[in-house]
């Protein structure tokens, strides 16, 4: 049949239209882009959240619960976890204590509710601990030694990243155990100690030396100590990262009687860890509106106080405490006295003055007073850093109880870097971890004689660029929470985690803003077959035939295609 001569012009051979390159019609062309998802953009630790959720979506080879299985044997969870570990060594901890700016920024909130990124991170962190996954050190040893002062989140994070870059790290911490504020500031019911220990030790097991009960008072001496002095290989330290935190409770002057019991929240929380919890009495008042105040109040209840009242000079909206902390505190029966200051503390009672916000939002005394029964007043008025480790170091400057650093986190003294609560920044564990990573990169570059230049940021993946039609209706899974009554009597973890099917569900709610996740829409929706599918999730525009209609860009659910003017 194929030898048959076809009637001229009336009958044509199939596919001969490919000779017609309709690409010549274009005035604009589709281009695949990678835009910065708002979650990535918001994460202080710089995690590539979109990417690890992408991996997590693939699940394990046979997920439970009737979910469609992912491609076999990809070990999506492990790949996801490793992606997190590129930036943040503490996913299990993050999943419990991070305030999730990623979720606040999540575009999905505009559709139904934000993706439970934090819950998924926690699941992955816990899974890694269950499976014993480790991060190998692939880089060749550089022979450089870096001193890290402070075994809190910032220092540990820096140690982790520096070790991965091939450097030899020693951490010196004044305390009896590593962890910093993660141990001494955040109560057990928010962060179980076994999780904390496991993630900390995972870093130490990579070859990091930890010296506890080793307070550093003079950093320059520390750096040059050991035989040989500064600069010789295998002795001394070639650079330092200082992250001692801010663990001194601020004291305000409060008029008090002799028998008034006043203590500061930081000390109180610290004492929970060394085995000698304080006796607070039946009614406890906590003065302050931050996260520490919430932790103090909730801890007080668990220590047996029947009443815990938070006294704060402004309103709930103005409280620096994270909303989820306030929520959990209220659920536990913590009472709140807004617009109140402590005028006088006496044995068994406090004199409270009512405040009123003026036009600028600043609280003003009203002259109205009331009494509040309280056996103990806990001050949670903020924390100061102990900057003595850097005092006297030439070039290092301070302001406002923090040490000044450049955009590379280096102090005024070349080779000494600082981060965490002791530098100007928002004071959270996640920010501190982010500093650790950033400092490690800059230290690494400095040690090699250069400077680290972060790559330019991509455009933000704004929600306007999404086509949310394609995401099925699915509000977030709510994490299970212990009932309030049970909560206040134990230090068991309050918020539970997701199991695998719910974690998978949450991960798959991610819209992958600004980054292709292989939905095949562009490949399918082109009326001209002008998009080639090279593999799952890999596409190429066939510019020979693309007419530039823009359907692919419009129907891309995650806004990963831009229409750009056709180059002339």
């Amino acid at each position: 049949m194929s030898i048959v001569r076809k009637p001229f012009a009336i009958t044509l051979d199939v596919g001969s239209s490919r000779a017609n390159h309709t690409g010549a019609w274009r005035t604009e062309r589709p281009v695949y882009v990678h835009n910065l998802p708002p979650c990535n953009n918001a994460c202080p630790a710089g995690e590539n959240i979109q990417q690890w959720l992408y991996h997590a979506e693939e699940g394990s080879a046979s997920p439970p619960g009737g979910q469609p299985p992912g491609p076999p044997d990809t070990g999506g969870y492990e790949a996801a976890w490793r992606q997190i570990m590129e930036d943040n060594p503490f996913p299990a901890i993050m999943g419990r204590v991070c305030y999730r700016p990623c979720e606040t920024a999540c575009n999905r909130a505009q559709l139904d509710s934000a993706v439970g990124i934090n819950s998924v991170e926690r699941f992955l962190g816990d899974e890694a601990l269950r499976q014993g996954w480790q991060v190998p050190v692939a880089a060749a040893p550089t022979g450089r030694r870096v001193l890290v002062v402070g075994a809190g989140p910032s220092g540990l994070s820096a140690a982790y990243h520096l070790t991965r870059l091939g450097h030899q790290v020693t951490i010196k911490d004044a305390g009896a155990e590593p962890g910093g504020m993660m141990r001494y500031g955040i109560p057990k019911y928010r962060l179980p100690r076994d999780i904390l220990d496991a993630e900390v030790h995972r870093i130490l097991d990579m070859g990091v030396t930890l010296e506890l009960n080793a307070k550093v008072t003079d950093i320059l001496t520390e750096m040059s100590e050991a035989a040989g002095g500064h600069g010789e290989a295998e002795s001394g330290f070639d650079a330092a990262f200082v992250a001692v935190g801010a663990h001194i409770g601020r004291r305000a002057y409060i008029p008090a009687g002799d028998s008034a019991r006043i203590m500061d929240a930081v000390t109180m929380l610290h004492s929970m860890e060394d085995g000698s919890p304080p006796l607070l009495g039946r009614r406890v008042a906590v003065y302050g509106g931050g996260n520490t105040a919430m932790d103090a109040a909730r801890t007080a209840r668990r220590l047996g106080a029947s009443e815990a009242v938070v006294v704060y000079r402004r309103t709930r909206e103005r409280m620096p405490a994270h909303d989820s902390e306030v929520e959990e505190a209220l659920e536990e029966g913590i009472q709140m006295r807004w617009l109140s200051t402590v005028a006088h503390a006496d044995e068994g009672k406090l004199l409270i003055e009512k405040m009123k916000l003026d036009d600028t939002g600043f609280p003003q005394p009203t002259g109205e007073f009331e009494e509040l029964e309280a056996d103990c007043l806990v001050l949670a008025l903020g924390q100061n850093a102990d900057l003595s480790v850097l005092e006297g170091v030439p070039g290092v400057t301070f302001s406002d109880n923090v040490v000044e650093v450049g955009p590379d986190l280096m102090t005024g003294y070349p080779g000494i870097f600082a981060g965490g609560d002791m530098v100007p920044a928002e004071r959270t564990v996640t920010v501190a971890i982010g500093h650790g990573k950033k400092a490690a990169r800059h230290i690494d570059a400095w040690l090699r004689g250069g400077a680290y230049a972060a790559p330019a940021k991509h455009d933000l993946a704004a929600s306007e660029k999404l086509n949310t039609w394609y995401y099925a209706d699915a509000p977030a899974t709510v994490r299970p929470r212990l009932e309030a009554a049970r909560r206040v009597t134990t230090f068991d973890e309050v918020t539970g985690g997701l199991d695998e099917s719910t974690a998978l569900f949450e991960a798959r709610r991610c819209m992958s803003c600004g980054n292709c996740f292989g939905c095949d829409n562009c490949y399918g929706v082109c009326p001209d077959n002008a998009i080639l599918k090279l593999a799952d999730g890999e596409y190429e525009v066939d510019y020979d035939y693309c007419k530039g209609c823009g359907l692919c860009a419009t129907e891309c659910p995650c806004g990963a295609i831009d229409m750009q003017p056709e180059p002339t």
Partner: protein
Amino acid sequence: MLKQLEGSRAVAEAVAMCRPQVICAYPITPQTHIVEALSAMVKTGDLEAEFLNVESEFAAMSVAIGASAAGARAYTATASQGLLYMSEAVYNAAGLGLPIVMTVANRAIGAPINIWNDHSDSMSQRDAGWLQLFAETNQEALDLHIQAFRIAEELSIPVMVCMDGFLLTHASERVDIPEPGQVDAFLPRYEPRQVLDPDDPVSIGAMVGPEAFTEVRYLAFERMRQSLGVIESAAADFAKTFKRDSGGLVRPYLTDDAEIIVIALGSVLGTVKDTVDDLRADGMKVGVLGITTFRPFPAEAVREALGVKPRHVIVLERALAPGTGGIVTADIRMALAGRLAPRISTVIAGLGGRAVTRKSLRGLLEQDDLDPLTFLDLDTRLVDRELQRMRAARRSGPSPENILRDLGITASGIG
């Protein structure tokens, strides 16, 4: 085997022997008996084919187009109004080169509606690109169908077999029906030039613009020209297989020494030959040239058959080209162009089924001063009265009804 059969029935049996695979039909007088007979044969299983009762003639030709393009032997039949209704598809079939065979049971075209025989229907499609073969007798009608399938499939051109409605279709004559196997020997399996085959796909029916349209049409023209030879060899082969003369391009009768030759198509040739026999007996040197293949027009065969002797050629036409006159005449004139041509007269006869009698024909042939264009047996009285009516009043009414009333056929008393 000899049988006494109605023409339609004979054609049906011949068509059935050709093993068509798809038969589609819409009823219209006077073709109905053909397709009725075929439908019964299919229903009993005597004929293995798909028979579709379609919703119009347009659908009939369309179904045949689809069937033929898919590689099946396809057949349909129509007449008159039906042929016009399918006209778009008739042209389409020829343009696509699909070897469909269709019987046209020649019938007049309305308005006014008329179910009786003349050639106006086939003539209206003469430029559609189909081969047009005209049967003189019922025997030739059935024979031509057998030849038609073979010719069509060899050339990839559709073929119209024209047979006079009622005069042939409904006339019972003795015919020789071929033996089983004779047709199979003569007509091989259909091997398409192009076919819809999922294993070897092509696109059939592309749009062709100015850059190639002329060439496509030229090729169609050229294939038509080649078909003359194919028709002749088919007829020769047929004669060998079936032992009788049927088909071919032209059929001359007593033309060798004729001074007057009458040219005609179809069943009227019988009456003409009878008349010529009578006149020959009276010493008149008259002959007849029957045109069997009208499209393509067999100009050379006509020239040869006419020779140089005749001084008068009378073209007897059963169709009218309003505004000009004869249709076949024009082709005759063109065939004889450039030679010393005899006098040519056109006689329009037998429109709408009016009988062409030996008496009228004789009178015609004996007339020496024939006008270039004559209407045989025209009732001038009727015509004059209508013309007068039309001159007298603007709203003179519908002419057919007026004339019928004059003839006393419809109720009079009005107007």
